[in-house]
């Protein structure tokens, strides 16, 4: 019998047969049979190195016989393997005993307890009493930053940490020093781990060497309520597991999802949760600053809204959501606006963002949209106007895996983009990128280098991907990116398209929001006296609106400001009526990620003030009550439903059973979408052919025209830590925030007599913003890049260009 090249080997493990794809290792084949072979150094994301020797099995029939490491051994046809063979069992027991030689008796004080791979393997391997008489080697620990705790005595030298850190994430400040049983994993000197993916060390370490520092000692694993949830701190929608205890979110862990984030998440998402349990979080409804009962606030809001609508017109009431509202919330907002005749909902701060995002969403089709998993398998990637490490960190990690497998990666972006792998950077000005993409899709003369080489490579590759952002690119460029991807995907080739969008549910917001309307236009309408009331629902718009002073003036002009939120933004303080909403932990929700994948976050805990905050040294409180303190916040969708009922009357029995179902007619891709119908891998809601919501631009200024006025083109950019408002509230992540830095190209800096390291001040004397100057060679000339870090909205830079006199050198 001949075995074809692609035939699936069939092997026998513990007397059971399994057929696996060629190249599968025995350990993975066993797992398919439900046989968990003990292992430490092996990890599906890191591959196998055969160092720990714990996965030993006995090969009874095969080209190599005897004790073999199942993680290194490729499954072959006809192989017969035993995991229960006496020699194999005895060997594994010895390996465990050897690993425990130096292991400290830390379980009583170690956070890893209860989810410790070493515990599991040790107990199931039958190791109990220690018969080794020698001393245990000990180590000194290092300070590794605010996120990851280091306790080296527990180390079993599986090498996972350095392999992950250096090979997988591409950062190089963690290494393995020493020799023999003194081998030590750490930095050259103490200090914050540079990788923004360092938190995964916590998940990947099979013992308690690396543990979650902010949640250290908060509780025992088995005391936590653990729930599958989603990260809502960028548009990728990575999967994670929430641990909650005593009404507080205590910890995030990465949750495996093969299509989106694989085994890992970034540090921003991992440590972003403190906002939900912060003492600053507003939990009581308020009318004109006074705490009131929730229901009263709802009826008061409804009355006042009706008054405004009556005095002027329904469209004098404007509604704003945001890209962090769940699909359910957005659905209710859409319904209210439609039925009450209110303006909106708008979900993006600037008109250009609204246009760019909704166009991007319209360009994604089911054939073009690529997941992170698909991007990691690309052989050629072109990034246009996107800075993945800061805008969508796990995208950068997926790109690195593609690079490791040989993909060639080109980035066209005016900003000084940094990525943890080598790539070709073309620092084009943002206005140049669209036309350049257009050229790539057409015929380029060979002399036009490097563009001709880039175009050729894209055409010749088998799985090219175009990745574009929506922060820096014009709407036209967003379309040109899609056109290039479509051109590459002609003739049945597999070509991909991916957009980095501004927010967890930006896709959903773009689908449902009233486009091309934006907060910018609402502010104009307020200034013109057309809008008299504004409802802000879980809206970061105020925290992302570039001109804070202008916004404050506008809000002051309003007759009525109603705010619904779960975090104390400045709008909350200014609201006439405030209604506290539930966080994603308390409400759950559906979110559509940047790929168009609807995913579900489950309810992780009941709302209410964390017990740690009400005890006040007197836990449990002596006064009994029937309600849960601080449980005022309700899911925004429910609150809005009540508001809708008060304003436009209760929904008809004949109407759609749920707000989501009500969208079916206007949004066919969302039809049949209910919470119950979302499978673990999510559900794609893409059109089959391009909708291309390119909006007419006749009356709107093209803010990305090749503007060659005085001064430098201003580019606001997100930074991984500090720009996303919720995550920026986490104390541990604030420590990770970089110092406020502005970036200039060498020639421009020289012309403005600014040097690398200079300290400058921008903004009014009353509230100046101090930054350091970084002069770099890898950015577009004629631009100045400023970070959206706390304080950025007060600096008064509201135009597209910055003049020299806006920047004052600090003496």
């Amino acid at each position, binding site marked *: 019998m001949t075995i074809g090249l692609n035939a699936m080997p069939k092997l026998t493990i513990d007397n059971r047969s399994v057929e696996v794809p060629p190249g599968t290792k025995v350990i993975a084949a066993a797992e398919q049979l439900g046989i968990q072979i003990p292992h430490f150094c092996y990890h599906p994301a890191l591959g196998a190195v055969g160092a720990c020797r714990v996965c030993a099995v006995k090969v009874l029939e095969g080209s190599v016989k005897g004790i073999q490491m199942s993680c290194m051994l490729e499954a072959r046809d006809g192989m017969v393997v035993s995991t229960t063979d006496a020699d194999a069992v005895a060997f594994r027991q010895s390996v465990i005993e050897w690993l425990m030689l130096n292991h400290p008796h830390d379980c009583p004080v170690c956070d890893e307890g209860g989810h410790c791979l070493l515990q599991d393997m040790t107990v199931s391997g039958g190791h109990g009493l220690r018969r080794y008489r020698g001393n245990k080697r000990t180590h000194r620990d290092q300070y590794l930053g605010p996120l990851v705790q280091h306790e080296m005595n527990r180390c079993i030298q599986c090498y996972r940490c350095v392999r992950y850190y250096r090979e997988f994430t591409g950062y190089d400040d963690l290494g393995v*020093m020493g020799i023999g049983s003194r081998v030590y994993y750490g930095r050259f000197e103490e200090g914050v781990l540079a990788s923004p993916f360092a938190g995964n060390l916590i998940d990947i370490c099979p013992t308690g060497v690396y543990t979650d520092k902010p949640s250290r000692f908060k509780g025992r694993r088995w005391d936590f309520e653990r729930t599958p949830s989603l990260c809502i701190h960028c548009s990728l929608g990575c999967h994670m597991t929430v641990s909650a205890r005593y009404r507080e979110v205590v910890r995030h862990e990465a949750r495996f999802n093969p299509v989106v984030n694989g085994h890992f998440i970034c540090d921003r998402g991992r440590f972003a949760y403190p906002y939900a349990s912060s003492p600053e979080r507003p939990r009581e409804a308020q009318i004109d600053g006074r705490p009131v009962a929730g229901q009263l606030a709802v009826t008061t809001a409804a009355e006042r809204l009706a008054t405004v609508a009556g005095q002027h017109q329904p469209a004098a009431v404007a509604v704003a959501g945001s890209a962090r509202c769940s699909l359910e919330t957005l659905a209710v907002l859409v319904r209210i606006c439609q039925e009450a005749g209110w303006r909106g909902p708008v979900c993006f701060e600037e008109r250009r963002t609204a246009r760019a995002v909704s166009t991007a969403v319209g360009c994604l089709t089911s054939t073009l949209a690529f997941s992170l998993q698909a991007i990691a398998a690309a052989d050629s990637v072109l990034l246009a106007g996107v800075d993945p490490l800061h805008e969508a960190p796990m995208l950068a990690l997926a790109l690195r895996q593609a690079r490791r497998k040989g993909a060639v990666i080109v980035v066209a972006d005016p900003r000084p983009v940094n990525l943890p792998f080598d790539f070709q950077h073309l620092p084009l000005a943002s206005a140049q990128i669209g036309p350049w993409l257009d050229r790539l899709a057409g015929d380029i003369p060979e002399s036009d280098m490097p563009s001709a080489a880039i175009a050729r490579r894209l055409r010749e590759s088998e799985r090219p991907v175009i990745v574009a952002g929506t922060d820096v690119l014009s709407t036209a460029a967003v379309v040109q990116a899609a056109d290039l991807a479509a051109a590459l995907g002609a003739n049945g080739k597999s070509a991909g398209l991916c957009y980095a969008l501004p927010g967890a549910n930006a896709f959903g917001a773009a689908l449902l929001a009233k486009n091309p309307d934006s907060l910018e236009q609402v502010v104009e309408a307020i200034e013109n006296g057309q809008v008299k009331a504004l409802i802000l629902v879980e809206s970061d718009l105020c925290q992302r609106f570039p001109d804070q002073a202008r916004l404050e003036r506008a809000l002051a002009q309003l007759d009525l400001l109603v705010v619904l939120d779960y975090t104390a933004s400045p709008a909350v303080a200014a609201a006439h009526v405030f209604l506290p909403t539930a966080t994603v932990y308390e409400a759950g929700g559906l979110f559509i990620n940047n790929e168009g994948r609807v995913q579900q976050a489950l309810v992780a805990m009941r709302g209410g003030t964390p017990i740690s905050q009400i005890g006040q040294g007197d836990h449990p409180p002596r006064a009994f009550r029937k309600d849960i303190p601080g449980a005022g916040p309700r899911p925004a969708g429910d609150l809005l439903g009540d508001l809708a009922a008060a304003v436009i009357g209760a929904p008809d029995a004949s109407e759609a059973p749920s707000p989501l179902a009500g969208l079916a007619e206007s949004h066919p891709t969302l039809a049949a979408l209910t919470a119950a119908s979302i499978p673990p891998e999510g559900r794609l809601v893409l059109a089959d052919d391009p909708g291309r919501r390119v909006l007419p631009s006749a009356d709107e200024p093209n803010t990305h025209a090749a503007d060659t006025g005085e001064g430098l083109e201003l580019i606001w950019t997100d930074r991984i830590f500090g720009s996303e408002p919720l995550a920026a509230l986490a104390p541990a992540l604030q420590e990770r925030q970089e110092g406020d830095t502005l970036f200039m190209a060498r020639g421009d800096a020289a012309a403005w007599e600014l040097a690398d390291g200079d300290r400058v001040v921008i903004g009014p004397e009353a509230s100046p913003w101090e930054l350091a100057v970084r002069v770099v060679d890898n950015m577009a000339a004629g631009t100045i890049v400023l970070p959206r870090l706390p304080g950025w909205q007060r600096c008064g830079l509201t135009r597209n260009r910055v003049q020299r006199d806006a920047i004052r050198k600090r003496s």
Partner: protein
Amino acid sequence: MLPDEMKTQLEQKIAATDHPRELVVDVIFAMQDHYGYLSDAAVTEAAALVGMTTVEVDELATFYPFIYREPVGRYVIHVCDSVVCWMGGHESLQNHLMQRLGIAMGETTADGLFTLLPVCCIGYCDRAPAILINKKVYGELTPEKLDGIIARLRDEAGA
């Protein structure tokens, strides 16, 4: 900081090779010879010269026995303790040295002259028991011969 001439020499050697990493141990030895031991600053300097990170250099420096990451004396005495030198009486030599110099294995004399370290078989088994002092071998040793060597080195250092 390395003297300019030395730095230039190393830079030229590194520039002449296809693979700078091949030279990292040579660079480390050069720095160690100059500074006396491989300090943290020396690690940083070596890393910059060869285009590696400090932790990558430290990964190597802490692996090899002839790279000293702590200050050592002017003369580093490596006493072979493998089986042939053991048969030849290395223990008594070692004890003699410890007594004469007044230090334990791993320590340096207060005057900064001598450091005592073990080493595995140095390949002079036909002249056991043998030691290395700054990579120079002395074999067929007796306590008297050792005393003579130490005295000569003290003289050399004093001169």
